[in-house]
């Protein structure tokens, strides 16, 4: 049978045209425009000036550090917390369907809405968090106003919102483990913890890898939640690459904004592609 005849390449054309025009062309031209001062109509070439500005001004370069902290923390916390929630939800408890829905729902609410709710909960003087802390005699911190704390507060909200995806991936991984492994372990007299450590953890490694890659990339690109909660403030304490791109765009520095965008590509490419290779090489097959 002639494959080329049945599966015509024409079928690819609409998708490829849309994707190339609205994704690939902007991506490729961004490399050039990041080397210019431009206003979308005319441009003057300025070499590496935008990148020099980016890395010499602390208000901009700090975003690279913040992005890395944000991405690593959110993905690490999601993996650990989701693993234990998933273990709990695959045990013999009866309310697991209810609890699964409960954990999952925040995921469907938009980041802006979640940001608004938590901004109110984290209000320094009358927010619910600090009221509860005050009731047990602790004077709560200024969650989003303290430059040392703000980034971590947003990380916590991101984890709250996104932990459910990681949880359901782990649940799928755990339930696909063959029960003979558990039987063998219980015959050998393994404790619950030994079973988790030596059977469950190695056998869900492919789920772990998926979660790490997904949430790391998500974290590196994150914009909406941070923007809704802090707008990069106080000062530049929660500015990430994506928010710098927006701020420079809003201020009219289009070349600088594009340079920020290119740096974002570079950071993701440097971290995500090798990471995926490394993680895939360590998988244990069931």
């Amino acid at each position, binding site marked *: 049978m002639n494959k080329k005849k049945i599966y015509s390449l024409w079928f690819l054309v609409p998708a490829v045209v849309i994707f190339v025009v609205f994704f690939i062309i902007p991506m490729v031209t961004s490399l050039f425009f990041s080397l210019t001062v431009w206003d979308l109509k005319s441009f003057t070439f300025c070499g590496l000036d935008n990148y020099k500005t980016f890395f010499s001004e602390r208000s901009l370069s700090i975003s690279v550090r913040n992005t890395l902290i944000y991405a690593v923390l959110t993905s690490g916390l999601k993996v650990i917390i989701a693993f234990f929630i998933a273990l709990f939800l695959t045990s013999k408890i*009866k309310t697991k369907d209810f609890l699964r829905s409960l954990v999952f729902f925040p995921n469907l609410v*938009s980041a802006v809405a979640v940001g608004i709710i938590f901004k109110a909960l984290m209000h320094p003087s009358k927010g619910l968090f600090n*009221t509860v802390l005050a009731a047990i005699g602790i004077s709560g911190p200024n969650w989003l106003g303290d430059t040392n704390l703000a980034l971590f507060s947003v990380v916590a909200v991101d984890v709250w919102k996104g932990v459910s995806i990681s949880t359901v991936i782990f649940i*799928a991984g755990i339930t696909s483990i063959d029960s003979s492994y558990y039987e063998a372990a219980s015959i050998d007299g393994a404790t619950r913890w030994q079973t988790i450590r030596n059977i469950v953890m190695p056998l869900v490694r492919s789920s772990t890898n998926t979660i790490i890659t997904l949430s790391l990339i998500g974290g590196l690109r994150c914009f909406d939640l941070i923007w809704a909660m802090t707008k990069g403030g106080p000062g530049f304490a929660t500015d990430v690459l994506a928010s710098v791109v927006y701020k420079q765009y809003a201020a009219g520095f289009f070349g600088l904004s594009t340079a920020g965008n290119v740096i974002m590509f570079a950071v993701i490419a440097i971290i995500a592609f090798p990471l995926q290779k490394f993680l895939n090489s360590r998988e244990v097959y069931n």
Partner: protein
Amino acid sequence: MKKQKRLTLLGDILGCIFGILIFAVPFLFMLVNALKDRRGANLLELSFPETWMWENFKEVFSANNYQILTAFKNSIILTVGSLIVLIIVGSMAGYVLQRRSDRPVKIVDTLVMTGLMIPPAILPTIWVMQGLHIYKTMFGMIMVETALQIPFTIMLYKGFMNTIPVELEEAGYIDGCTREHLFVKIIFPLLKPVTSTIIILNAVTIFNDFTNPLYFLPGNDNVTVQLTLYNFMGRYSSSYNLLFADVLIITIPMLILFLFFNKKIVDGMVAGAVKG
């Protein structure tokens, strides 16, 4: 065995308490405060309202010359429009990409899969849209959303095509079916399960999208629901009751979707994530 039973019961109780405290209380907090008067809501307390202010919703609806209705209209057009384009171009591409494995197909595959990781280049996209005279138009926005969701959509279609036996097409081909007929009449109907997953997942993503409309669809007439929410945040920073009422109105479509398609959504997200 008795001890085991008691232990799971304890697990149930503790799980529900912590689950509700951590995941339900924030929404409950929003719900009760959306129904208070301004002074009550600004105390930001978790308590039932003294007077139930159902008028809050009316006020939010009529604010800014019924902007929220325009926003819902725009968001729905954007979501439905993008979904239609995505399903048509995505299913066609996923079908051929899975069935063939020669060089051009491999190149397209690699190209599309970069889109799963790399974020869009914002300003050059605006530049392209301006060049095509579709910046600040709904059509342009639909094209951008489509381009951004194409990689994920194709990935899901490709994964599902694996499960469809190739003999079907061979039989159809021998019977004299044209290739367009083959796809439209035989393959596309078989893709229905994955199509519904794609509809739900992309609908949630596009309806909740804030960043892209912020960049590519500015202007008061073009406002989408997530943008009105953001605008409300600035305007009603001192009337939490109205702010929360707005959040509630905008979250309701997702809540309804979730009540009906809970299992489908969760399974779809797992399928999508694991294949990625």
